C-alpha cells in the first residue's frame, strides 16, 4: 500500500501537480476567496440586494468616473505605444552590449518605488519647478504654467511607469523576426521605410497587441498616480473605491465598484481578443 502510494506520487504528472500546489493554494487563498468575499459583500447587506449596483448606474458621477478611467487608460496606452515602439525598434537593432545596457536600465527602473517616481514628477512639474521655470526663462510663457494635478501630469506619470510593459513585449517580438526578412524586401525593390512598413511592422504586431493589452488593463486599475498627480477631474475608479473604503466606509458599495471594474476589464479583454485574434496570429508561426 505504502509502495503504491509512493509510485503514484513519483509519477511525472503527479510530481508536476505537487510542484503546482503551493502556487494554487496561494492563488486560492489570496485571490479566489477574496473575490468571492467581495462579490458576496456587494450583493448582501445583510440580505440579498442589488442597490449598490443600481446606485452606480443611477448616479451620473460614477459613470463619469468610469468613462474618465477608460479615457485616461487609452491615452496612456497610446502614449506608451508612440514612445515605446521606436524605442523597442532601436533596441532590437542595437548591438548586443548596448541593448543589454538598455534592458538593464528598463528593469532597474521597474525596481524603483512607484511613490518615489511619482513624487519626482511632482518636483519636476510643480509651480516654479524645473519645467515651469525653464519655460519662463526661455520666454515661451510669462505666466506660470499649470503642469500638475491635471490630465497631463497623470498621463505623464502613468506612462513613465507603464512604459516597460509596452517596450518589453514589442522588443522580444522584434528580436525574434528574422533579420533577413527586411533585407530580402529591400533586394526586391522596397525602400527601407517600405521594408519596415510591409514586413517588420506587421510581424511585430503580436508584441504591440500584448503591450497594448498589458498597459491598458494595468491602467484601468491604476490608483497611486491619479491620487498623487491628478486633480478632482482625474479621479479614476480605483480612487473612487479607495474613497468609499477609507472615507465613507461604505464597503458594500466599494465591493460593487470593484466587481464592476473587474467585469469591465474582462469585457475589454474579450473584445480585444475577438478583434485581434491573438491565437490566429500564433497559428501563422509569427
Amino acid at each position, binding site marked *: 500500500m505504502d509502495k503504491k502510494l509512493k509510485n503514484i506520487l513519483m509519477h511525472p504528472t503527479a510530481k508536476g501537480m505537487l510542484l503546482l500546489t503551493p502556487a494554487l493554494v496561494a492563488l486560492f487563498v489570496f485571490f479566489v476567496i477574496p473575490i468571492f468575499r467581495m462579490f458576496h459583500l456587494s450583493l448582501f447587506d445583510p440580505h440579498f440586494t442589488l442597490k449598490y449596483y443600481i446606485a452606480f448606474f443611477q448616479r451620473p458621477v460614477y459613470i463619469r468616473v468610469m468613462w474618465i478611467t477608460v479615457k485616461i487608460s487609452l491615452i496612456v496606452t497610446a502614449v506608451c505605444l508612440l514612445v515605446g515602439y521606436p524605442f523597442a525598434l532601436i533596441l532590437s537593432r542595437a548591438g548586443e552590449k548596448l541593448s543589454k545596457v538598455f534592458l538593464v536600465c528598463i528593469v532597474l527602473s521597474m525596481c524603483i518605488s512607484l511613490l518615489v517616481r511619482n513624487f519626482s514628477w511632482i518636483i519636476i512639474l510643480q509651480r516654479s519647478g524645473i519645467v515651469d521655470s525653464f519655460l519662463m526663462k526661455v520666454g515661451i510663457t510669462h505666466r506660470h504654467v499649470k503642469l500638475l494635478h491635471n490630465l497631463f501630469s497623470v498621463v505623464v506619470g502613468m506612462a513613465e511607469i507603464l512604459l516597460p510593459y509596452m517596450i518589453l513585449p514589442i522588443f522580444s517580438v522584434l528580436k525574434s523576426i528574422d533579420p*533577413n*526578412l527586411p533585407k530580402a524586401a529591400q*533586394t*526586391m*525593390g522596397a525602400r527601407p521605410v517600405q521594408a519596415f512598413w510591409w514586413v517588420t511592422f506587421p*510581424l511585430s504586431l503580436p508584441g504591440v497587441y500584448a503591450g497594448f493589452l498589458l498597459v491598458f488593463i494595468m491602467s484601468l486599475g491604476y490608483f497611486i498616480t491619479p491620487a498623487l498627480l491628478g486633480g478632482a477631474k482625474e479621479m479614476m475608479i480605483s480612487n473612487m473605491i479607495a474613497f468609499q473604503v477609507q472615507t465613507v466606509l461604505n464597503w458594500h458599495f466599494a465591493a460593487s465598484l470593484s466587481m464592476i471594474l473587474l467585469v469591465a476589464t474582462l469585457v475589454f479583454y474579450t473584445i480585444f481578443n475577438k478583434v485581434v485574434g491573438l491565437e490566429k496570429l500564433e497559428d*501563422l508561426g509569427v
Partner: protein
Amino acid sequence: MSGSVVLKGLVKTYPGVVAVDHLSMDIREGEFMTFLGASGSGKTTTLSMIAGLTLPTSGEILLNGQDVTFIPPHKRNIGMVFQNYALFPHMTVYENIAFPLKMHKVSKEEIAKRVTQALHMVQLPQHGDRYPSQLSGGQQQRIALARALSFEPGLILMDEPLGALDKKLRQHMQIEIKHIQEDLGFTTIYVTHDQEEALTMSDRIAVLRDGKLEQLGTPEELYEEPKTLYVADFIGESNIFKADVLEVGEERLKLQLPGGRSFYALRCSETVEGPEVSVAIRPEKFRVLSASETVSEEYNVFEGIIKEVIYFGESSKYSVEIGKDVIIIVKQPNFYPATKVGVGDQLTLSVHWRSCRTYCEGLSL
C-alpha cells in the same frame, strides 16, 4: 535581360578580420557562377556586397558596366534567394511573389499574370493561397525562387539555397534550378560549400579561401587542372603525398617515393624549390594491371600491398601502400566478372604521368 557583374579589388574588413581580400573577377551575362569555399572563406560576404546589403571597405562593384558600389539594394534590381528562404510568414504565397512587383509599381492585372506564371514555372500552381509555414522545405525553396524571379531581374544571387534540403531533393532541385536558369537566361551567382553541387550546376566556379580567389575556372578545369594543392584537395578527392625531386625537366619532374621507386609527374610551377614536392593524384586515374600486362613509357607503374577494401556498389576503393608510409586510395569500377583481390594482396597500378600533379607548397588546413 541578363546582367554582368565586375568586381574590382573588393575588400571587406571587420574588426580583427579580413573577410574579403582584394577580390576581382568578371561575371559574364547569362553565366552560372558559383562561389565555392569553406565557411569563413568570404563567399556569403561577397554575395551580400553584390546585393548591396553590406558596404565594402574598399573596391568597386560594377553592374552592367555601371558603378553600383554605393547604390542601395532596392535600386540594384537584383533578385536574391536566401539560405533560409526569407519568405514573409504573414503573407500568402501569392502575396510573397507579388511583393517585389508591388514594390516596382506593376499594375494589378500584370501582377496577377506574372504571379501565375511564376507559380507555374516552379510547378506549384495551386499553392497561391497557402502560407509559407504550410509548405514543405522543398516547396518553400521553389516559392523563394519564384519570388526572386517574378520581377525579372537580370541577376539572381543564391546563398546556399539548397542547404536545408535532404540529399535526394537537393539533387532534384539542382537540376530544376539549372533548367530554369538555362530557359530564362538570367545571370546567376550561387554560393555553396558543397563542391559536388558546384561541379554539377556551374558554368564557372570561383574557389574562395580566406577571402581570396584561389582559382577561377570551369568545373572541368578545376577538377582536372587544380592550380593549388588546396583546390586539388577541396574539389573532389586527391591522394596527396610528398616525394623527393630527382630531375627537373621542362614539363615534367622525375620524382622518388620514400622507399625507392621513381616516377614522372607534371611540373606545375615555374620554379621548383627544395628537395621535395607535394604530389596529388585522383583516385580514379589509376588502373589495376593484370600480371602479364605492360604499359607504355607514358605511364608510371606502382606496386603495393592492399591494406583495406571498401565496397561502394558501383565502385570499390582500395587503400594501397606504394611506398614507405605512402598509402593511396585507388578507385575502380566494379566490372563483371569481379576482380578477386583482398587485403594483403599485391597490386600493380598504372597512372599517366600527366595525372600526377605537383605542388611546391604543402597542404596547411
